[in-house]
């Protein structure tokens, strides 16, 4: 009787006469990813996320989608305006009647002029953006940065301190994807944007927020950059849509 030899092949990984497998598996884990690296990667992912979103927004129409039937209605209204307008010029009809006619056909554009309506219809919808309807999209496309310096801002030196934040914001904090209980909604990008919508309707190009204290209480300082300069606000960390929780501001920075 002969012993059957095992088939030739790679060694069984469990068969380890060297003892190295046991040694390697007994080494302690390196521990969690360091916080600074978590913050660094989270920030770069947030940037990437922003980059992914901005091109989409830039290519979206800057006005709400209008159903085809309403566009057709506008075109018909514009044609009616031209026809009636020409007639009224000849007959002296009051302009108010034209507005009523246009409003009836165009719905939400009752306050718009006939010139805008005809531009929209003649350009196939490629009309200049209306600020009110596009502001939300534009706000989303604006880069925001969140810092967590824990600076102690005071009402007495607020303008200087806010200017210092702008000059040297420090490393960007990891933007929390979910609200951190100790920080509040403003610690997230969505939360900050919602706070900004409560603070101002002005157009701004960048927003910088710093989580620190204001006169001793937890707060966030927000600096908005507009075409006219920089404006700073101090808000409670509960600041969100419809609830600015303003502590100070707006303060124009020099």
């Amino acid at each position: 009787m002969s012993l059957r030899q095992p088939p030739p092949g790679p060694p069984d990984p469990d068969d380890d006469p060297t003892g190295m497998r046991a040694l390697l598996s007994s080494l302690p884990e390196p521990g969690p990813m360091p916080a600074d690296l978590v913050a660094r990667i989270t920030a770069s992912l947030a940037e990437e996320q922003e980059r992914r979103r901005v091109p989409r927004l830039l290519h979206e129409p800057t006005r709400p989608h209008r159903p085809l039937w309403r566009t057709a209605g506008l075109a018909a209204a514009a044609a009616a305006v031209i026809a009636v307008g020409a007639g009224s010029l000849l007959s002296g009809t009051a302009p108010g009647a034209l507005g009523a006619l246009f409003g009836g056909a165009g719905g939400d554009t009752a306050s718009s002029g006939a010139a805008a309506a005809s531009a929209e219809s003649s350009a196939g919808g490629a009309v200049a953006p209306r600020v009110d309807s596009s502001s939300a999209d534009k706000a989303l496309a604006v880069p925001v940065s969140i810092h967590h310096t824990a600076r102690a801002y005071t009402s007495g030196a607020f303008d200087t301190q806010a200017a210092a934040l702008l000059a040297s914001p420090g490393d960007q904090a990891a933007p929390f994807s979910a609200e951190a209980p100790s920080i509040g909604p403003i610690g997230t990008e969505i939360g900050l944007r919602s706070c900004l919508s409560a603070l101002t309707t002005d157009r701004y190009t960048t927003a910088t927020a710093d989580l620190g204290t204001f006169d001793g209480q937890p707060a966030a300082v927000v600096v908005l950059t507009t075409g006219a300069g920089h404006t700073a606000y101090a808000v409670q960390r509960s600041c969100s849509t419809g609830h600015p929780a303003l502590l100070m501001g707006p303060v124009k920075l020099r």
Partner: protein
Amino acid sequence: MGGDLPLEQRTDRDLLAQHCAGDGAAFGELFRRHRDRMWAVALRTTGNRELAADCLQEAFLAAFRRADSYRGDAAVTTWLHRIVVNACLDRLRRERPVVPLPDREIADRHDAPGQVETRLDVLEALARLPEGQRIALVLVDMHGLPVAEAAAVLEVAEGTVKSRCARGRAALATLLGPSVTGVAEPSGAP
């Protein structure tokens, strides 16, 4: 697809699919879930904290950007491991010439083999192994990946992983010597 569930209750596959569909929070949850394990893999593969940090940042960004390359034929963690290991290997191949070799032989300095010293010795010896053997040992022996999964991460046959592990362990044992391994050298060994 689990989209109604809280983030932490969604599966990795759902999160990746939702990320591809434009969900801005899904990838963050994947990162939160797997960052510590990937950190350990990167650290043990490179043996250098700064290098591991850079590799991981590159790897997670690559995963974010190329999420649609995930075909679903392996676990998301396998796919992530592959991206991290490849990022580390790419980086090591570029940086390897500047990694200094130790002045002394590892086996010569076991007068006081404390636990920390042993760990450092093991990691140093690991760093001296050929790349394929080192990665195989990191994945299979240190992180407990099944051979099949390690083979999927490395995109090689399972037999290759087994061979690399066996050769790597033997080389490691030689580098470390008997005082660390606790395994007696064969009689008659020089």
